[in-house]
């Protein structure tokens, strides 16, 4: 059975079509893998019965020759996407027992494409974190372990369950969401491809909101082609999301194989600060070399406001979050802790329901929006955000894509004591693209000396995911990265 879990989405797609095995067999293989790997804590909710039901439906369609684009492909869904009749927690106690009567647009599109949902994947509480250690359902373990020492590593975050499950072959791919790096950084930590498309490409409808102007869904897969297949099924205009773009969805898969010949690749000097991890630096140089050899032109560029991106992000994102999370008040759904008065009930419910990191961000966000601080923080941050966008706009007049490291390090230990600022610095390379709304992807490109995966990040201009996929595939081809097999 493990042979089935080792397949890529593209392979499984054609072999299902040829009826070499059934969708139900494929799903069963993954369900038993999930069972064996529960120690990773990747799933919050397993939906085995539902998965079997949907797999059978897929088999019927396949038998009738009416298979849809991803018919019978078993996926994991980050537990930030509302799923009809299936508990949706955002990894928070405050949503305990919440079972939405509606399906998010993205998960609905994946259902409509024929995919089979295996379960809901663990994440940082409300997607706030870079290590998947803030989940109310406990931390997720990275299936990768370092050579030469015993340690349990984080999978990155916030889409840590998505990355761990995909890396450990507990699903063929997973949805993630990326607000400041939550798809790309865990992809890098787990040796996977993670794509954050252009803001507005995927509908946010039905996705529990963290920071509305930044949140964007995307796929986490084991290779570039699978990401292209999955993104196509996930994205598209949705009238229910006012920030969704009314643009045709390109066939991302069709550009694969076009190579990078003639493309201009920008290397931003600001992403090479003093003290950059030597292994990361070396891998970046390696990536530059690969692209040059593949026929791309390397161009040194500057993104001068890069150093302000992280502080800007930690004003904008908490500000929006402090407002977005106000609806968790114990009145209509989820946790309610009774109190002596309405205010007392609010205080007790939210004190009990939210974890420390969520509370920290709500407080930061409330502070920066407060009278007397709004101009100094929120307004200033919006201005800086505009400058960061301008940096990218100007850069993309000179280059077609930008290559950087994805994260400043490889995965670290679950039990490492890491202070908040250091934790926030995990997103230093991913946050600028989030603020600019441009697409970005992480491709596994190499290993540390301990054998842990490292990713490289590719960025392109808005709506140019096609170039993004071309560059990613070129790196993938050159790197020859070998992921984990089935556990």
């Amino acid at each position, binding site marked *: 059975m493990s042979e089935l879990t080792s397949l890529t989405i593209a392979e499984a797609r054609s072999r299902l079509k040829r009826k070499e095995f059934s969708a139900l067999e494929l799903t069963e293989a993954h369900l038993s893998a999930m069972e064996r790997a529960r120690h990773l804590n990747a799933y919050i909710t397993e939906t085995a019965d539902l998965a079997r039901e949907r797999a059978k439906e897929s088999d019927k369609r396949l038998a009738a020759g009416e298979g849809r684009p991803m018919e019978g492909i078993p996926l994991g869904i980050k537990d930030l996407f509302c799923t009809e009749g299936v508990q949706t927690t955002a990894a928070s106690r405050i949503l305990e027992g919440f079972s939405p009567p509606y399906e998010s647009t993205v998960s609905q599109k994946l259902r409509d494409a024929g995919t089979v949902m295996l379960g809901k994947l663990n994440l940082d509480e409300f997607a706030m974190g870079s290590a998947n250690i803030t989940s109310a359902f406990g931390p997720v373990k990275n299936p990768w372990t370092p050579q030469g020492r015993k340690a349990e590593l984080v999978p990155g975050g916030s889409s840590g369950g998505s990355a761990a499950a995909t890396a450990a072959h507990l699903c063929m791919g997973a949805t993630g969401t990326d607000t400041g790096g939550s798809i790309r950084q865990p992809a890098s930590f787990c040796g996977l491809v993670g794509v954050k498309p252009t803001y507005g490409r995927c509908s946010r409808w039905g996705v529990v909101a963290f920071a509305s102007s930044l949140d964007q869904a995307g796929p986490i897969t084991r290779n570039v082609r699978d990401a292209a297949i999955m993104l196509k099924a996930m994205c598209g205009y949705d009238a229910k999301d006012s920030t969704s773009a009314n643009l045709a969805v390109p066939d991302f898969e069709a550009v694969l194989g076009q190579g990078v010949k003639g493309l201009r690749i920008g290397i931003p000097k600001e992403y090479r600060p003093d003290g950059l991890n030597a292994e990361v630096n070396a891998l970046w140089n390696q990536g530059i070399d690969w692209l040059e050899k593949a026929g791309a032109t390397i161009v040194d560029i500057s993104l001068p406001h890069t150093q302000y991106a992280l502080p800007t992000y930690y004003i904008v994102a908490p500000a*929006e979050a402090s407002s977005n999370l106000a609806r968790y008040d114990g009145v*209509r759904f989820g946790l309610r802790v009774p109190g002596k008065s309405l205010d007392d009930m609010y205080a007790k419910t939210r004190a009990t329901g939210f974890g420390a990191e969520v509370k920290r961000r709500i407080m930061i966000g*409330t502070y920066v929006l407060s009278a007397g601080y709004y101009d100094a923080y929120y307004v200033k941050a919006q201005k800086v955000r505009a400058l960061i966008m301008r940096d990218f706009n100007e850069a993309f007049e000179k280059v077609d894509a930008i290559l950087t490291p994805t994260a400043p390090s490889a995965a670290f230990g679950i039990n490492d004591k890491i202070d908040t600022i250091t934790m926030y610095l995990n997103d230093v390379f991913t946050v600028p693209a989030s603020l600019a709304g441009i697409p970005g992807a992480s491709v596994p490109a190499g290993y540390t000396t301990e054998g842990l995966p490292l990713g490289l990040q590719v960025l392109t201009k808005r709506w140019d995911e096609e170039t993004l996929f071309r560059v990613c595939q070129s790196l993938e081809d050159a790197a020859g990265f070998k992921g984990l097999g089935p556990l």
Partner: protein
Amino acid sequence: MSYIIKGQTGDWEVVIGLEVHAQVTTKAKLFSGAPTDFGAGPNTQVSFIDAGMPGMLPVLNAFAVEQAVKTGLGLKAKINRRSVFARKNYFYADLPQGYQISQYDQPIVGEGTIILDMPEGSRNIGIERLHLEQDAGKLVHDMHATKSFVDLNRAGVALMEIVSKPDLRSPEEAGAYLRKLRAILRYLGTCDGNMEEGSMRCDANVSVRPVGSTELRTRCEIKNVNSVRFVMMAIDHEAKRHVEVYESGGAIQQETRLYDSARNETRSMRSKEMAHDYRYFPDPDLLPVELDEAFVADLEKNLPELPDDKKARFQKAYGLTAYDADVLVSEKENALYFEDVAKGRDPKQAANWVISNLFGVLNKQGVGILESPVSAKNLGRLIDLIADSTISGRQAKEAFEAMVESGKDTDTIIAEKGLKQITDTGPIEAAIDQIMAANADKVEQYRSGKEQLMGWFVGQVMKATQGKANPALCGDLLKKKLAQ
């Protein structure tokens, strides 16, 4: 300026600004497709968006935007081609999202004007702004001993907040402003103006100052007063309270106050110190509203005739007095009814019948013109019958009363009551001859110069003909016969 508060230290004037929340006439809520029917069962008009469910996103109701722009144009206001929705953050059980989506520093409509016709002359009252926002839900406290119930039917309903400048100087002006604003909204069809059902609500900002001073003193905001009369009473009470406080050496604190109509007093609701910090910021779920010029121009071109223009036209085209014209245009339906009646008839007579007779009946019955027991067609017919001398004015009044009673049409009533006027000279002459024969002494007195007896003779003829004789004809014939 007639409203002066005589204090012990001198004369005071009141400074009033009004904030009106007008429910936009639209089938759906401002950011969801949920319906907005008044009086529906609790929580039956609620979408997942209105209930603030996780992951739900607002989508702007384009028709509500159109209605707001139309209203702005009707208020002769600046239409802002770019406006922004902002979140106003606060916690309350009737506010599911934990914030109200409103507009803050970039409203959809800027400065405008409302013209008031006051007895002292016309007054231009400035409009500061108009913005779109969501209504909150409703808490019901009296259904359970220890629990409150939440009804979200109103949550998310589209409101226009229309803010005046502090230009009003008396409770009467405030009342006139509200009535005029209501009329404009109803003419435009952008709000039904129904204060009882809460589709138009008013907050009043009130302060006072010594007459002659131009300073703006500390104001108090009186919340949610639900009739024009109560707004006027609340302002009067609040202004006098301010004067008393100042004259006894005290100071007015900026605060929000509630009006208690049963006691005719205001009391403190929350002070400035307790005021919320709403942490307004642009709603990242919504794009800025960009209006193109053609869209606005098109709405402007298709605006209906508004009260001021209609009033001017009524005065000019129908020769009505300013007062009559004002009365007739105050409600769009009244004006329409009047024009139906006046068409092809003497407009002054039409106005007279509508204002003096019909409105009296409607007021007494407490119904609007749309429920009028007498249709415009029937009233017109009645006036026609007077004009061609078929019936007398007195008969017309009798017929009108019967029409009000029965709801039957004019001709039926005239026939049933046998109200046709006698215009044949024969029967009238016969009656005159009989009366003259029986009252030879009175004839003699008349002929010897006591001409005031003419009225008595007319009365006798009317009596003899059961009031059906045409009075003018009657007079002519009497004069002729008595002179012989």
